[in-house]
């Protein structure tokens, strides 16, 4: 597999955003259920896949997975099959969703990628947790509200950020407008 400089750097920067959302707790939005929060930490993975293709998506997913494995405080995510493997697949599924729909409306394709990527994350992580007996199958209904919130958040944020980045990249707004200090 050949990975070029662009893919390495973009994947690195997006992984950094995922880590930042984690360490600052900004990526966790309070939801009234057992785990207490819905996450948006996986959104950089989806964006990597949407903006730069599946390799970047998988790389960001790998680093996000490793980060959640090493900083795990609950003991649920120490198994890489729970923490890393599902995150690798987020990039793949969201990329192919985006690609198959990108002929039409870009916003719809990005939203669909956000939904599919989030569902990949939730279903595979929860599935692996149940399969390894780390949480009882009866706990699944309590995760549903959190999953719904995550899907909605991912759909909204993926579209907005992807459009924002594409707008800046298209050059219709000059780079000077987004330089430091001029937010």
């Amino acid at each position, binding site marked *: *597999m050949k990975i070029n400089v662009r893919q*390495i750097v*973009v994947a*690195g920067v997006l992984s*950094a955003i995922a880590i930042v959302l984690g360490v600052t707790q900004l990526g966790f939005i309070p939801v009234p259920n057992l785990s207490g929060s819905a996450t948006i930490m996986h959104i950089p993975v989806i964006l990597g896949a949407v903006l730069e293709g599946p390799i970047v998506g998988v790389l960001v997913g790998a680093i996000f997975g*490793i980060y959640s494995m090493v900083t*795990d405080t609950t003991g649920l995510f120490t198994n890489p099959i729970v923490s890393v493997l599902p995150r690798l697949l987020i990039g793949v599924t969201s990329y192919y969703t985006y690609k198959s729909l990108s002929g039409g409306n870009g916003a719809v394709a990005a939203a669909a990628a956000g939904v599919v990527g989030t569902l990949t994350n939730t279903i595979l992580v929860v599935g692996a947790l149940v399969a390894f007996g780390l949480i009882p199958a009866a706990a699944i209904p309590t995760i549903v509200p959190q999953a719904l919130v995550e899907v909605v958040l991912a759909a909204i*944020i993926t579209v907005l950020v992807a459009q924002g980045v594409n707008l800046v990249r298209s050059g219709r707004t000059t780079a000077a407008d987004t330089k430091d200090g001029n937010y």
Partner: protein
Amino acid sequence: MSLEFSRNVTFGQYIDIRSAVHNLDPRTKMICAAVIMACAFMTRGLISIAPLFALAIIVQLATRIPIGYTLRGYRLLFRTMLFFVPFQVLFYQAIPGVEMHYYWRWWILSVSYEGILGGIFTLSRVIVLYHSINTLMFTTTMMDLSDGAEIMMDPLKKLKFPVNEFVMTMTIALKFVPLLITELERLMRAQIARGVRFDQGSVIARTRKLVPVLIPLFVNALSRAEILIVAMNARCYRGGEGRTKRRTMHATARDVIAGVIVLLFGGLGAYIGRTMGI
């Protein structure tokens, strides 16, 4: 809501002082951190976690990093634990055959002596885990960390896994974390100055407040990425193939001693946890 991320988030920082731990081979430190984490997950109670906790204190003293600085990094962690630990105490499940000492009981909720011990155990395990990773980051430069990781992942090269590229991605990610935290802080201050309250409102309201922070964060991060791409291409970066290292790593007697100490304490904790379950 406090906005001092860069003061409180110590994740991934290197502290440039001289100490016994700083001088160890990065590979030793990585293996030791992995051993500590593995042993911590084999502990079952306060007695088995005690040797690991003692080890964490010894390591902390050996690094000569001010204890206040280390604790500062725990602030955000403690905020989550403040929610998680009481939850665990209240829902503590009685182990069959163990007599419970209840202080208070209602429906499935209870406060028991065993539950409180369980809560303290969880908290100390989290501290041990967090401390091992943090100390590794505090005492190892990014260069050493990535060189060490590359050597340890060497066998994967046989499987055509792009080790160098992956390690480079990880290095860039860690390098960008403090930078992006500063940036995030500035963006949030800008929003706060406009009257936005990030800690209020429903899920939807909170998300709407986050969007004007997230978009510039991504856009700026990606434009920084463009600059880095040009810089790396200009220096003819082309992955790990045929690349040589200026510095080579050598393990010394110090590394053996450090490894033995970690194995002794970690092994003791894991052994007590595995055999006695306490």
